[in-house]
């Protein structure tokens, strides 16, 4: 017999049947179910009230943040979180407010909480990436930005991914990580939507890092989507110019110049491109006479450039030697060029050029050598000299 049978009597009538206990348990069960439902309703109602308050606090926080009052916003967001500490929107807002207040450690703590819950969330990764930029942690920057780019976005995923990629590229460019930036641009290219402005932006970034082929391709794509896009036209012109496609460059640079907005660089490039085409003796469509004239003109221009450079160099060397009490000889390259110039001078006539098939090539070789040698020591060439330099480089490229 159980102990409670002997004392207070609950079991006196129940054992051995146990009916009373069964009745008790059924009663308890009924009370439990009723209480569970009742408390459930109470909790739901309370939660709903708390959610309303949380929403209100969140809204006020957002307003404060927009009004440039991050400190006040922090208080509102914290209040919102006190009602629902798992609310990701409030957590993110709070982290953003803390970043605005330059309280990076705290912000990181909240962002990490969010990241622990949703490591694939694009927004959270982007914020962590931005935080890493502020902390100069390049490895973390790459990690979080890539997470953001390949992560999940609740709204407008394509646009958000592109924006994140642009931010990353800008960071890489600012840190001189040109190769990484280029690879990011190349990765970005296939997924770009049909948006002329976006292609233009990508083209400009390619242009900035010196990938002219991709830049030209992007600008052309942008123009295909919007032929009135003057930035794309200018960009296409510049890219073509850099690639040595001067006819195409003139076409696009002309188009860009026709618009109201254009920059000095566009204008200079257009003039240089024209000069290139007007003075290039290697163009196929030229007559023999015209080719001779261009060679002679180039030779004269190169000779003038060489003499000016030697004179300029001698003047500066003289000043330096008088200061150092020692004579500085003219550089060997310039002396050689001067010698070659003297050797060629007698031969450089239209008749000689016609008679001697080796002479045009030797003359143009001298021209290109002069322009290349004088470029680093006598300042950047302008006008015809610049055109000749570009022709030479373009020619070298073709020959290579």
């Amino acid at each position, binding site marked *: 017999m*159980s*102990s*409670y049978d*002997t*004392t*207070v*009597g*609950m*079991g006196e009538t*129940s*054992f*051995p*049947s*146990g*009916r009373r*206990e*069964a009745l*008790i*348990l059924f009663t*308890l069960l009924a009370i*439990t179910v009723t*209480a*569970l439902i009742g*408390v*459930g309703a*109470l*909790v739901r109602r*309370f939660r709903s009230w*708390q959610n309303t*308050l949380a929403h*209100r*606090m969140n809204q006020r926080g957002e307003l404060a943040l927009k009004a440039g009052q991050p400190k006040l916003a922090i*208080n*509102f967001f*914290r*209040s919102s*979180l*006190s*009602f629902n*500490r*798992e609310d990701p929107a409030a957590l993110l807002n709070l982290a953003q407010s803390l970043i605005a207040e330059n*309280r990076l*450690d*705290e912000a990181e*703590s*909240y962002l*990490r*909480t969010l990241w*622990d819950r949703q490591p694939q969330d694009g927004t959270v990764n982007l914020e962590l990436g931005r935080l890493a930029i502020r902390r100069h942690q390049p490895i973390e920057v790459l990690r979080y930005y890539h997470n953001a780019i390949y992560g999940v976005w609740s709204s407008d995923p394509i646009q958000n991914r592109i924006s994140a990629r642009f931010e990353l590229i800008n960071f890489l460019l600012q840190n001189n990580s040109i190769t990484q930036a280029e690879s990011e641009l190349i990765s970005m290219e296939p997924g770009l939507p049909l948006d002329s402005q976006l292609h233009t932006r990508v083209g400009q970034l390619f242009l900035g890092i010196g990938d002219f082929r991709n830049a030209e391709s992007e600008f052309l794509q942008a123009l295909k989507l919007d032929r009135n896009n003057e930035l794309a036209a200018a960009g296409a012109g510049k890219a073509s110019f850099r690639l040595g496609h001067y006819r195409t460059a003139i076409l696009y640079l002309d188009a860009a110049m026709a618009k109201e907005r254009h920059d000095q660089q566009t204008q200079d490039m257009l003039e240089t491109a024209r000069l290139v085409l007007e003075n290039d003796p290697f163009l196929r469509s030229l007559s023999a006479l015209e080719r001779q004239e261009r060679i002679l003109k180039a030779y004269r221009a190169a000779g003038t450039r060489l003499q000016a450079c030697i004179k300029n160099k001698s003047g500066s060397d003289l000043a330096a030697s008088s200061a150092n009490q020692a004579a500085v000889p003219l550089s060997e390259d310039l002396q050689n060029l001067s010698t070659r110039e003297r050797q060629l001078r007698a031969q450089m006539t239209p008749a000689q050029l016609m008679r001697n098939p080796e002479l045009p090539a030797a003359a143009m070789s001298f021209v290109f050598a002069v322009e290349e040698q004088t470029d680093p020591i006598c300042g950047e060439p302008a006008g015809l000299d610049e055109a000749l330099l570009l022709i030479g480089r373009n020619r070298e490229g073709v020959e290579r």
Partner: protein
Amino acid sequence: MSTPTAPSPIAEQTHPEPTVRYRRAITWPLHFAFQEERFFLILSVFIGIFSALAVVCFRLAIEWCRLKMLGPRITPSGLHVILAPTLVGLVVAVLVLHVFPAVRGSGVNQTKAALYIYNGYIPFRTAIGKFITSALAIGSGQSLGPEDPSLQIGAGLASALGRRLKLSRDKLRLIAPVGAAAGLAAAFNAPISAVLFVIEEIIGRWSAGILGSVVLSAISSVVVMRWYLGSEPMFRIPPVELIRPQELVVYGVLGLAGGLAAVVFSRAIGFLRPRLKAMPRLTQYFQPAIAGLLIGLIGYFGFPQVMGAGYEYIDQAMRNQFTWQMLGILAGLKIVATTLSFVSGTPGGMFAPTLFIGAMLGGTVGAVAHTLFPHLAGSVSTYCLVGMGVLFAGFLRAPLTSVFMVLEVSGNYSIIVPVIVGNTLAYVVSRALQPTPIFDMLTRQDGLELPSLEEQREENILRVEDAMRPAAGPVLNVDETVEQAYRRLQQAIGDIFLVRLGSSGWTSVTREVIIKLWEEGKGDLTLGSAIPRRRLPHLHPDLALEVALRYAQKTPLVPVINRADFHKLEGVISQEDVLNRYKLVERE
């Protein structure tokens, strides 16, 4: 001979009618299930559910009061920061003095007293009163926590249910701790800690008899609580990686600081509480209000973090929101505020404030350590969490609970080594400087003497080996003849001799019996055939001396034998030996 239509009683027994069989089939499982122990276990589940529901409502009530009195902003401001705790203090004082006189304090001691003094009786009115007054006090900003009241509410509910079901006195006595565990588990969202705390602090001893019920109620309570309020751990910190063992030194420093803070905290309470209690009754109407006013002023003048339970600020501290100076100030002010609230007789718990102080202290030590040694791997949040455990161990003096509590509230096992280091040091420091634990001190101030697990741990337990002596005479063998035994006893002293019964144990024989057998001419008989083979109970040297007392009352000489070799006699013990040993202890 019976007719075919009249079945014999045997036939009736072996082939009962379908109705009877059906009734038996129904009643057998009931019979099985409702044996008292099992019924009590089932009841424990219900107690867990009811306690959890009560605690959920309690938490909603606290939050409702807070929102109504202090507003929805996390950092309350304005005059109501001062007015709310002051005015509510007056209301609470009236309720405590006139309506619910047994709700003062935290509730842990009251539950323990119910177990040991009042046969598990906790008036239902007390549970209701605790609910209302604690919700008002904590919600208005008094520096107290909801855990200890939850424990008492759970115990009160369980006690009321036990009385309603007319359980036996034994079970009624045990039902209060079962409810207490459920209440605490729901309040902390930590079933293991709740079970350990109830064993360490309420029951005061490891009792296998009640453990099952306590665990069941705690688990069912946590399940229900999580269903309503979510299962997220209370605090979340990143995994802790101890890169250098030297980092443990900092956690050791935190343990020392925590131990000292715990001593300051408990001494402040121990000093002020009896003095305020002894003041005229009229002043007791104003004590909670004055405490509320002072706490409100602390809040008004820039430190509202010390108001209420303060969990949200622990979370902020873990997220590096405060400078180390601020963390230190908050730890100090929380000690002041909680002492004021508690000694004024305002109902409410000390768990949450203890965790708050510990977190702030931990954060301070962690932040200072990071400033001095920037290479330290542990974040400030780790130190906050360890600090919570440290103060729990030092102040509440529940070392096991403190370790598991930290693991459960953070859901992070990687922190265990720093926690053990910190908690152990805090416990040792606190015990050395403040020998009486806080709950024992409070019960003694209330004129009660309740058992304490810590004191039991420190007691020197007397064992059989402390009182046993070598066997005085020869040990006889069962196959010896009476003649041989007689000869051996002639040179021996003493009147009672042990006889080894082969493999079956030991018995004893008196000198008088052997002499009588020899005189009767039974010298050739073996002892086995001549004396009755009444087996003696035996003891082992490591058993508690009180066990020996039980056996020595019935037997003049009890053999003490080796646990590994039952034939090896380590010594003997008699009732006189036991009593002499106890007398010696008294003299010492």
